[in-house]
């Protein structure tokens, strides 16, 4: 599937296109198919997101998984600071990145 990601303009937080707005949870990302360019142009000019781009991802039982390790690090937070990641209590999160 193709999903959209970027950073929130004001806070810089990593965000994912959920069909109506931008979520900080990668699992809420939706497949945009052919509409990536159109949504990105609209959202960036509306200043809801910054430096946004489309990426490949897959969906399995655990949720949405970006194809590239860099976007998995973005989705989670730094692997070396589990206390600062989005799922701080889950000891397995680091493994998900790799």
């Amino acid at each position: 599937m193709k999903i959209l990601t970027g950073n929130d303009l004001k806070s810089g937080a990593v965000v994912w296109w959920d069909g109506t707005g931008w979520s900080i949870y990668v699992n809420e990302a939706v497949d945009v198919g052919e509409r990536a360019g159109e949504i990105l142009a609209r959202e960036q000019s509306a200043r809801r997101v910054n430096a946004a781009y489309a990426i490949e991802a897959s969906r399995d039982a655990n949720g949405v998984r970006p194809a590239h390790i860099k976007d998995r690090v973005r989705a989670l937070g730094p692997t070396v600071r589990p206390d600062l990641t989005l799922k701080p209590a889950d000891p397995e999160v680091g493994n998900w990145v790799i």
Partner: protein
Amino acid sequence: MYLYDQYDQAMVDARVEEFRDQTRRRLEGKLSEDQFKPLRLMNGLYLQLHAYMLRVAIPYGTLNSRQMHMLADIGNKYDRGYGHFTTRQNIQYNWIKLEEAPDLLADLASVEMHAIQTSGNCIRNISSDHFAGAAADELVDPRPYAELLRQWSSFHPEFSFLPRKFKIAVIASDTDRAAMKLHDIGIQIVERDGALGAAFYVGGGMGRTPMVAPCIREFVPLDQLVPYAEACLRVYNRYGRRDNKYKARIKILVHELGKEEYARQVEEEFAHLLSQGIEPPLAELERIKPFFADPEFEFGLPTGIDRSDPDFALWVDRNAVPHKAPGYVSAVISLKPVGGIPGDASAAQMHEMAELTKQYSFDECRVTHTQNIVLPHVKIADLHALWTRLDAAGLANPNIDTIEDIIACPGLDYCSLANARSIPVAQKISQRFSANGRTAELGELKLKISGCINACGHHHAGHIGILGVDKKGVENYQLLLGGSEAQDTSLARITGPGFDEPGIVDAVETVTDVYLRERDAGERFLDTYRRIGMEPFKEALYG
């Protein structure tokens, strides 16, 4: 330490207000990201993996306690309670909000600090010896010269759009503690016939094409320091490769022209500049110098150390460095706990280091390019009390210049240019060697890790270097041996095929085993490598 005059302060304050206005216009949509990005970068604000990242300049790495307290406060107020000290003696914050950045910069300006020229193709923060003003072996304190160059290069209109970024280091001793020859310009203050002058090394650097800077002039009289630097920059500004980002650094120009031809062109430009009468008056240097005068060292201090506590004795042996004044040492605070993140300090630790700076080191501390902190002037008699406080704050790691004192760039955990993570590799190596107990036996061993070819972690200059690469979407690590960034600067060579993460930790252990087996008495890892060459290491690694 240098204090801003009214011009310095006015410039920095004006810049904050300018950026506040630019940020407002961006948030209101009057500026597009394409328009705004160069403006925020000129103020050190990047967009990185998780948020905006702010890089704050620490001129020649020197801070007072007020500034260090402010860096801690910023960590708490605008970030997530910590900061990352870098190999260019700066600090980076990883979780900055754009809407708060102008307030942050105003807070910084209130303690005479800023983030100007920490990004972009301009002259960056000027680095220096972290033991400046304290080292027993220095000719003079190099920082007045670094400060003069800071003033000259700040907002220099001609050098705001160079072909590429530009980094300058200034030292004043034969021992190089600032990787001087791996800078675009490395300056060593030297003495000739009783007069001080500057030796210029131009065209060094790391990145994808590492080069050791050749000396292009052995002696520039001090009153001509600025015009000579200006001439070096002018030739580069005119002929540097603006067509290709990867060939745009001055090292490529010097290499392609040859050092003689580059030097000839610089001399020509230099002669022209001297005819213009634009060199800053020596009076400015004389105005700057007293800011760096020695603190009032006491005389007749005790020099004995009670070594009855073995942990304290070990820390003294590893982390205390001889000082030019009897009864004093420089104490290095290691930001490299076993299994920790090299260069990170929590806000609480920064506050404590600020307190210790004030209490034990004449209100002055330094950031080192090895991502540690130095208290330059500590009484030997105060060492035990200092160590006790550091220990309580988790800052008494006795490992300076050992294999646990690893330099690591942020890598893929934070950096958008990374191929692989650097920090976890550093963590595993320090854990491995702490557990196998070989750190002491290995002695001085500089291990440096970068997460990509840009070499922010100085991997080319490590006795052992590690470079993260992307192997079909999987992190992979190349091993390099034989680099140095000291006075015997050399570039490390790749051993062969790369390793996965567990593999690289094993590989480091393997090469240290070869060293322990092959070394002659008194040899460091680097010395043994230079004597026996790459083959025995390759043989052990790849069989």
